[in-house]
């Protein structure tokens, strides 16, 4: 029996002695400062809606990374959770007049449930099959998004009201909306950071690196994988819900497989299995789309080429390469 099945994703061979560890800590601190500083100050320098979009996708990518980077499972159907939650939140806000935060929670709950079903089915097969199955299941979700009466089919759910936070703060004010999104992002990011650095996270990493061994140590790996899947789906849902409030829109684009591909690109580009990588990756991809939109559909070519370059030349991603270059364990 072949037991060397640990995935080679994010294979670091950099040495990290004690010196590397201190350096790693310093660098992490730098990243934290940069991140929080950026989140707080960005709307003064950049178009706030653009930054909100960035943050939503960054959260989405981080949630996705929880699965691929820290559990070693490539889901090719994460758009289902992102888009699905967007629809649920949109509907709750539009039709039932639910306030924003309960709306987001509803979306997240939906994604969690959906994640449970998809995850339970998909973990029956491994590796490449896992990817194909998640893709196909996401396609079913897409079908429902297209067919169910409340989703508005190809029109999408339009004009979702942003509403008032705690009945007080008007989210139609751009800056209010912005800081709400920033808060959601930071909370989500912290949750992910905590999951990675929890006892549970340790087991996930063990499973990623050597599943049979983890199994022989008495860990019910399928259960852990499923929980990780559900967590990832839930947070992806939070990102989707928030985005639907920002743009007042839930549409098929959010649930389309190309979205699943984009989130993979963001994560890969930033660095699979790194903490800050997906944020950086999301920034690069969203900014690329934004600034390249002038050249129209060439965007897709550029995105595709980035994908190829990433896979061929720097599989560790921007942050992963940086970590290796600075010889620190993880960022």
């Amino acid at each position, binding site marked *: 029996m072949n037991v060397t099945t640990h995935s080679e994703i994010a294979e670091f061979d950099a040495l990290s002695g004690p010196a590397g560890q201190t350096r790693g800590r310093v660098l992490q601190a730098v990243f934290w400062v940069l991140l929080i500083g950026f989140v707080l100050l960005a709307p003064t320098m950049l178009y706030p809606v653009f930054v909100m979009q960035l943050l939503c996708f960054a959260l989405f990518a981080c949630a996705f990374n929880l699965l691929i980077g820290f559990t070693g499972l490539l889901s090719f159907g994460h758009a289902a959770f992102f888009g699905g939650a967007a629809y649920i939140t949109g509907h709750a806000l539009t039709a039932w007049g639910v306030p924003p935060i309960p709306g987001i929670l509803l979306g997240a709950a939906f994604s969690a449930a959906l994640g449970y079903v998809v995850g339970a089915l998909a973990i029956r097969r491994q590796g490449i099959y896992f990817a194909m199955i998640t893709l196909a299941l996401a396609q079913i979700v897409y079908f429902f998004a297209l067919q169910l009466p409340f989703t508005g089919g190809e029109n999408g759910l339009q004009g979702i009201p942003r509403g008032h936070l705690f009945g007080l703060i008007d989210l139609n004010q751009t800056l209010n909306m912005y800081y709400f999104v920033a808060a959601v992002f930071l909370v989500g990011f912290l949750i992910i950071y905590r999951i990675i650095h*929890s006892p549970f996270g340790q*087991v996930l990493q063990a499973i990623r690196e050597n599943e049979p061994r983890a199994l022989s140590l008495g*860990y019910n790996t399928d259960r852990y994988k499923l929980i990780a899947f559900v967590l990832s789906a839930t947070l992806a849902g939070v990102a989707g819900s928030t985005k639907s409030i920002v743009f007042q829109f839930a549409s098929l684009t959010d649930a389309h497989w190309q979205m699943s591909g984009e989130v993979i690109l963001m994560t890969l580009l930033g660095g699979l299995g790194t903490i800050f990588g997906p944020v950086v990756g999301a920034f690069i991809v969203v900014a690329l789309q934004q600034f390249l939109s002038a050249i129209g559909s060439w965007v897709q070519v550029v995105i595709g080429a980035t994908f190829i370059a990433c896979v061929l030349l720097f599989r560790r991603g921007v942050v992963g390469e940086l970590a290796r270059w600075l010889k620190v364990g993880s960022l």
Partner: protein
Amino acid sequence: MTDIILETRDLQISFGGFLAVKNVNLKIARGTIHAIIGPNGAGKTTVFNLLTKFHAPTAGRILFNGTDITSWKPAEIANHGIVRSFQISAVFPHLTAMENVRLALQRRLGVSYHFWRSKKVLESLDQEAVARLDQVGLKDFAHLRAVELPYGRKRALEIATTLALEPELMLLDEPTQGMGTEDVGSVTDLIRKVSKGRTIIMVEHNLGVVSKLADTITVLNRGEVLAEGPYEVVSKNQAVMEAYMGVSAEEAEA
């Protein structure tokens, strides 16, 4: 009558019609080291996989301390004290040696599903983890990542991790494979040391190691038990000589 910790009854598995293990009846006495030898492809690893539920047997039963465990899941087996090592070194390469061992200890705390807690809660285990590493001579390497350890040390780490689960029954698949001579010696000593108070089943090609360690030897050939007994008995067995060494009867007499 000896105390039997593990027993198999007519254990059998076929892969697409190919019987890799046929009618294997093992009785492992508590507190002994039991070696399984046999030519490549005899089914040794497969027997291990059956015992630890990585494969489901096509027929037969497995009894552990008298309980039928045939239908248990791999994780359950491990939780009841049967832990295995692997033919190829099985560590978590990007975790430090200490974290490797700690993963085995961690289950005891019952926090493994706690994704909302900081892993600082695990630090209470650090001391014990280091002690375990010390047992196998890896104390000084506690903070190196496993991928950075030389091969022999990885095997030692694997054994330390396995031990940390305090298994009643340890299964070691070719613990000395791919090691230099010095390492073989130290691992042999290590196994002898840790065998106190527990039962070990091991697969090993290196007969030097087997003869030094094993109380009982089972010889497998083509999925079947060919002979069983202490080293002196098995090594005189005619069938074993032929099947395993290819020395025919006349030659042995000559």
